[in-house]
């Protein structure tokens, strides 16, 4: 993904984030990119019929709004998962996009059937002991898993050929989405 595409995504997200339509100046401030680059990118977005300029403010078209919505949700998801600082590096990684866009439709791990595969997209764990154990053992957001056993009392997950057992209560607080076949084709290089 080149910088131009990244900037396009950032601009679309920004319009969605701001309560009122941003000006070119707002975009420059937020992205810390040069004025010419911003102008050029907005032109390109206009060409794609995703945004239009309206009295110096950038607004989304219907088509643009749809895409921006997806990007925005995705950004929120990554930020929640990896922290604000890392989110930017993560969200432009293509391999994760498909399932992270579905993060809002996630279900708790204990609702997965045996043999089902998925990706962890969220954790509602507040206990720091539990959280640090989960992360240390490799149950981090974005990781792929396969359910080996779901006995009702606990689940056994396969993560990168490692077996991890998680009790019922904790597994109910970890959320995942089912992974699709096409994700496997898009590995990071």
């Amino acid at each position, binding site marked *: 993904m080149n910088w131009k595409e990244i900037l396009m995504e950032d601009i679309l997200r920004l319009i969605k984030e701001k309560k009122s339509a941003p000006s070119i100046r707002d975009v420059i401030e937020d992205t810390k990119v040069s004025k010419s680059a911003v102008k050029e990118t907005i032109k390109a977005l206009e060409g794609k019929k995703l945004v239009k300029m309206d009295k110096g403010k950038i607004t989304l078209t219907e088509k643009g709004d749809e895409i921006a919505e997806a990007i925005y949700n995705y950004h929120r998801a990554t930020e929640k998962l990896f922290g604000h600082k890392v989110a930017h590096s993560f969200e432009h990684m293509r391999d994760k996009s498909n399932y992270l866009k579905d993060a809002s439709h996630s279900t708790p791990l204990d609702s997965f059937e045996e043999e089902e595969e998925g990706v962890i997209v969220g954790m509602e764990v507040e206990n720091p002991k539990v959280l640090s154990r989960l992360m240390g053992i490799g149950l981090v957001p974005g990781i792929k898993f396969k359910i080996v056993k779901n006995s009702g009392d606990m689940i*056994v997950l396969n993560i990168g050929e490692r077996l991890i057992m998680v009790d019922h209560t904790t597994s109910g607080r970890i959320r995942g989405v089912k992974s699709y076949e096409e994700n496997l084709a898009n590995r990071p290089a």
Partner: protein
Amino acid sequence: MKKILLIGQPNVGKSSLLNALTNAKVIISNYPGTTVDITSGKAVINGKEFLFVDTPGAYSLSPSSEEEKITDGMILEGDYDFVIQIVDSTALERSFIMTLQLIELGLPMIVALNFWEDAEKREISINRSLLETILGVPVVRINPVKGKVEELKNKLDDAKTSYYSFFYDDHIEFMISEVLKKMDYKGKASKRGIAVKLLEGDPVALERFCFSELEDIKARFIKEHPNVNKDIMITRAGYASLLAKRVERIDSRGFHLSWLDNLIINSTVAGLLFTLLIFSGIFLSLLYLGGWFQDFLGGYFDSLLNVLNPWLQSQNYFTQLLVENALIGLSAGISVAVPYIGIFYIILALLEDSGVLTRFIVVLDKLMRKIGLPGKSVIPIMLGFGCTVPAIRSTRILSDFRDRLKVAVLYMTVPCSSRSGIIFGVVGHYAGVSYAIGIYVVSFFLFIITAKLLNVAISQKEAFLIEELPPYRKPLLKNIMVKAWIRMADFVYIVLPLLIIGGMLYGIVSYYNLVDVVVKPFSFLTKGWLNLPGKAIIPLIYGFLQKDLVPAMLANALGTSNFSKAMNNFQLFTFGLASTFQMPCIIAFFMLIKEFKLWRALIIEFLTFAYGMIVAGGLSKVMRLFF
């Protein structure tokens, strides 16, 4: 001499590395103020002397168990020159969380990649030189099981503080700078690292470096970061994940399972059968192998006594009694306890190192939960079959205090190898194997009943279970022997002297004819309730001092070592029950005090004694009705 900490996740090969570096010449010491064993060893490498210190396996430096607190504490204490982090090449991402924590603390370090051959097999390729460039610390490959540690040995002088840096979001960074202003810290770690740990709520750091304004700083940012510890952890995990993505390429994304896991985890019946098979294997090897060793060593001691006999006869009666009983004590320890405990610990180390032990948690989880214990308690309970003393300590792996207490009480129904010695040596030998098995059956049911009763007395709280089932690995004989020895060392150094002292004490008691003084007041218990010969109280009481000596004391008290002459089979069975379901011995008592405080230890002692006597007497009365 340079002191080096070996740190890493559980099962990552820390002790193998220690053994490989020091040629298995390790010593065991106690971590000050705790009961955790720390192994260490010295070695001369390239002409320089090094002291390597193993740390308890920790998933990260944000402790989630008592053991992880020890590791965190050792790191924060700063009593070392540098750290070697052993990293599992097949699970880089999660190991990097700890790497980043070490970097954050600004500690000089070396990263050692273990299991890299496994990683290659699974098509995970790691760009080692890129990682070295990013972090600025030596990154070496090791295979301690095969003794390949040369790369590491050659880099021991190159440990460095990493120049890699990473930041949290602006508010957290501001909080860090606020903490830095107020914090007063001088030590090995970087101030920033300590500040982050304080904000993260690290219990060890808080205990050592907490200051009054810390909560105010947190409170000021409660809106932006209601849960700053979570945000820090998540951001760090995010960086770890990014770092892993930069340096590794994973071409296989399969979810393969070994055939054994397929069998025992997917099928409950197969799992239970497998567990039963292993358990009976342990039982049989204890019975036969242990018995064989017992005969062999016992014979050796008998002949030693015979050799000494002429000399003993020439001494006065008091010395005679003293020396003879001291020798009986020593002989009981070496010929009864050492074989059973030794064999048990070797088997246990084998199960642990091969990765089988944790599978029992999965298989037995349901059963344990039914009786109100977490699945993980299988491990300390199994250890209880060896010796209650280290087993009490091992309850630390359970995160909830109440669960630990429950398991500690339950040890009275789990025959340790000393009590197994009584069951085999007294009951099995003189009343028959079926009576011995009968005692085990009774203990199994009593275990379940007691656990249920304890649920009423000690309220239940659900503890978390997040545990890895480590990959199966071929265990290395040397490592197994070292591990078994580490567990046995306590026994040999503490229990054997106690046995000798105990033997001498009995000598004194019989010299001054104090036996009757003890026997009479208790005859209501022995004769009345248990229906045993009055003198049987001596070995029963002696059980508190040392259960290994019970058979020898019984022989002394009854005046014959052919117990069938003095007691019938039912009496032998009752005696077996009464000495099996007993209060923990004196060493276990001290361990109980250490772990659970004096008042709880006293309650456990008295309650279990009463409970055991009620059960043994009650059962003997019931049996009398039927036979």
